[in-house]
């Protein structure tokens, strides 16, 4: 057997090294390590926010400042108003206060910016980072630009952490907690929703994920990590002034995350280490080179980041792991699927023949173009309806109207007897409609089972906190068991743990079906599921669809492969130029001259 280290062993080695560090290192090095720890916490928040969630903030330093100033003011003020006086005595209470202040402001800023497309958030954070910095500097209460001191040290069980090597343990305890909770969170129901934010929002919404809420969650978590870092910083320095919370630090934090590898939690620590150590070194040599004093290291950092983004967009962490992997192989943790858990409760399917979907005169205009013109169709439980037509006939547009991805210009869509026109895809998904996409929307770097498990989002309810502290494991087992069951059902059991992006396109479409089935729908919308499949795979897919409809599920199918459609479906609707040109049994439609004309075309 090949020698491989378990990640747990590495973790223990890291903890032991950290524990021994203050005993062997000089005070100067301990100070550097303390700073690395403080910066790492902020950078971990940015990994979650930027690398994983696709949101960027240059204002993290301002959150650090909020944490720092809150505790500085509360622990030094001698004349706190009566209702606040009770917290004036302990930094631990002011940590709580700081977290509340920071979390609330992050929430309010998030409300304003998170609904906008991605680049407005970073611009907003630059602006608010600058505003807050000037505010710190101008408010008399906060000591102005010179700041103020006299801040007490943190005490743990009466033991005061006055020296660098004393607070060292507390800082790195916080860092490890941040790493572990972030890793836990990402490996959970909420975590999968968060990981879908980057490039998979439409899909996630269609699976019932509230993406706006997920964005808010990571924005607030990142701000809280920054706040804790500020709290530790102030009680280490015992002094506060606005300089470390300016926009330049906000930029530096982002550099750390991006340089280390924005998509990896450990990359944050690498980035913080590289930037901090380089900065110490450059600040010694550069002023000598240029013959004057100043922040010259930023020239170097700027150039370094440009080069790293040109050559390795993923940052240093992936390079580092592939290098060390050759020397010290680390075992990849294989996820275990527990088959014996109690299965998730499933929906009662409507009785066969019951009307599921009723679309009446649905019209969708894009400017002057009518993509869908007064199109009506209905799907009953246990029935397979095919929607066919040449390229550009408006089939996928019709799909988007029905599933709530888009809103029809006019017309009415009823699902399970309720009017769902104008409802969001999230609400419709909750009612029991699930879909696949014509242009496959999988998260290519996530494993097949994680992709499929996103489908089960609405069947669990464990939140962020239980995920962070692993109180969600029982539910998680059930969600994954359900995902595994559906993957096997569609015949991809062998690929459960491979990256979804490495599958052939046809197989990726099948993964989408498994994901849709995991949401336990009563109506399934499949957009060209058979494209790119081989004959036998198509037969297997047809078999599966027959079984599903026999169980009472309704299926609406957009397809081009007439062969596949004809032997399988109960009824066919044919579209051309956004209108229905034919409807009926497969054999009738096949002989309809209008259909032949639409498919083969003609000049005369």
């Amino acid at each position, binding site marked *: 057997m090949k020698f491989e280290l378990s990640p747990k062993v590495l973790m223990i080695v890291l903890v032991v090294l950290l524990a021994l560090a203050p005993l062997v290192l000089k005070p100067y090095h301990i100070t550097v390590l303390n700073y690395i720890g403080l910066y790492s916490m902020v950078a971990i928040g940015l990994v979650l926010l930027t690398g994983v969630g696709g949101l960027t903030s240059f204002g993290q330093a301002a959150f650090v400042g909020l944490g720092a100033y809150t505790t500085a003011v509360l622990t030094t003020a001698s004349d706190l108003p009566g209702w606040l006086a009770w917290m004036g005595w302990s930094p631990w209470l002011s940590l709580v206060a700081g977290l509340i202040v920071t979390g609330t402001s992050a929430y309010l800023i998030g409300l304003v910016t998170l609904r906008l497309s991605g680049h407005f958030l970073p611009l907003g954070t630059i*602006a608010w980072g600058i505003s807050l910095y000037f505010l710190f500097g101008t408010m008399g209460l906060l000591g102005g630009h010179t700041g103020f001191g006299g801040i007490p040290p943190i005490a743990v069980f009466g033991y005061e952490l006055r020296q660098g090597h004393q607070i060292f343990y507390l800082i790195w305890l916080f860092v490890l907690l941040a790493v572990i909770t972030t890793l836990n969170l990402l490996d959970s129901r909420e975590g999968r929703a968060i990981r879908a934010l980057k490039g998979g929002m439409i899909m996630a919404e269609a699976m019932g994920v509230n993406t706006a809420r997920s964005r808010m969650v990571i924005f607030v978590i990142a701000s809280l990590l920054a706040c804790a870092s500020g709290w530790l910083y102030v009680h280490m320095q015992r002094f506060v002034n606005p300089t470390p919370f300016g926009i330049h630090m906000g930029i530096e934090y982002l550099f750390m995350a991006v340089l280390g590898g924005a998509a990896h939690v450990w990359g944050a620590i690498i980035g913080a280490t590289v930037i901090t150590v380089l900065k110490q070194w450059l600040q010694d040599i550069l002023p000598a080179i240029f013959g004057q004093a100043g922040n010259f290291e930023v020239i170097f950092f*700027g150039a370094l980041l440009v080069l790293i983004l040109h050559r390795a967009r993923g940052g240093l962490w992936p390079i580092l792991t592939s290098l060390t992997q050759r020397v010290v192989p680390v075992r990849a943790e294989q996820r275990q699927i527990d088959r014996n858990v109690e299965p998730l409760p499933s929906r009662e399917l409507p009785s066969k023949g019951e009307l599921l979907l009723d679309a009446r005169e649905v019209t969708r205009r894009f400017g002057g173009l009518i993509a869908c013109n007064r199109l009506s169709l209905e799907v009953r439980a246990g029935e397979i309806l095919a929607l066919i037509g040449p390229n550009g006939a408006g089939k996928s547009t019709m799909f988007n109207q029905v599933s709530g991805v888009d809103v029809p210009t006019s017309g009415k869509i009823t699902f399970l007897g309720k009017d769902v026109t104008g409802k969001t895809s999230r609400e419709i998904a909750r009612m029991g409609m699930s879909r696949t996409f014509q242009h496959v929307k999988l998260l290519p770097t996530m494993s097949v089972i994680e992709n499929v498990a996103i489908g089960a989002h609405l069947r669990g309810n464990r939140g962020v906190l239980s995920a962070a502290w692993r109180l969600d494991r029982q539910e998680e087992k059930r969600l994954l068991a359900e995902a595994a069951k559906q993957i096997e059902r569609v015949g991809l059991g062998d690929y459960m743990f491979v990256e979804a992006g490495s599958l052939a396109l046809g197989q990726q479409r099948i993964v989408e079906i498994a994901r849709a089935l995991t949401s336990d729908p009563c109506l399934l919308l499949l957009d060209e599921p058979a494209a790119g499949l081989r004959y036998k795979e198509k037969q297997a897919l047809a078999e599966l669809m027959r079984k599903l409809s026999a169980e009472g599920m309704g299926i609406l199918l957009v397809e081009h492969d007439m062969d596949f459609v004809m032997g399988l479906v109960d009824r066919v609707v044919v579209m051309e130029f956004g209108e229905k040109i034919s409807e009926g049994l497969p054999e009738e439609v096949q002989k309809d001259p209008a259909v032949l004309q639409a498919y083969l075309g003609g000049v005369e």
Partner: protein
Amino acid sequence: MDLQIALILGQDGITNGAIYALLALALVLVFAVTRVIFIPQGEFVAYGALTLAMIENGFFPATMWLLLGAGVVVTLADGVSAIRAGQSRKVVGIAGVNLIYPLLLLALVWSLPLRDLPLAVQVLLTLLIVVPMGPMMYRLVYQPIADAPVLVLLIMSIAAHVAMVGLGLVFFGPEGYRTSPFSNARFEIGPMFVTGQTIWVILSSLVFIVALALFFSKTIYGKALRATAINPNGARLMGISPMLAGKLTFFLAALIGALSGVLISPITTIYYDTGFLIGLKGFVAAIIGGLSSYPIAAAGALMVGLLESFSSFWASAYKEVIVFTLVIPVLVWRSLTTHHMEEEE
């Protein structure tokens, strides 16, 4: 506040607003054509102002070295790839623009009695030095990852910005400069005094805005830039390469930046890092226009200028806080009027 003070403040606000309007137009243009959020715009302002200040004081402008350095790197990068592609004839052209030009300029600047030159020539020299850095910057920083997501390009911008600020400190030192005004005239119009420089700033901004409008509506290169902004794929099929569009856009942005710096430096003391704040105010205006509308951005710029000058009167300590917090209500308004969900990447 009496009418006189209000008029002075209003005049200040409009003068600064005119500069912010120019910058906002450049930011909208760069974003529309290249999807780059051009944070280093402010550095071009500072480089323009401070290069002129150095020339005025008879020093050899240190930015000349940056132009030469960037030119060498571009020549190497483009030259090697041209030779690899078997187009060694192109190397002459590449070296001509990126290497020979800076060298000739260097010789010219070296030999001229900088301090004694007329102001117009000094300004021209400043533009000749600073503006070519725009396209070079596009080539070195953005072109290799032109298809990257907006956020990656934004991080690139920030990286370029901090590097340029650092270099600015090396080139110009920590002291601020104010250059001599284009005109010392003072006019009395009713109850207020208007300085010649104010009129210079406002008129030049107007002329430049009109010139830009003509460039975009009348010339084929201007139309090509608009086409790239509207439909990059379609433009590419017409032979308008993203590289050409990018360089042309950055040329214009650098020109606008350097010109703004030259115009504003007689009014405001410029430090090596002042550009960032000036550029960001242009940004606030550009955001008001949603990074897409030129007229709204220009109107927003005037608003920012007026807000800044009036708040410096009422609450001078909170001037910057007030200007930058303005972004928040603007973003609220934008978020309430945006409904569709956008897929990033």
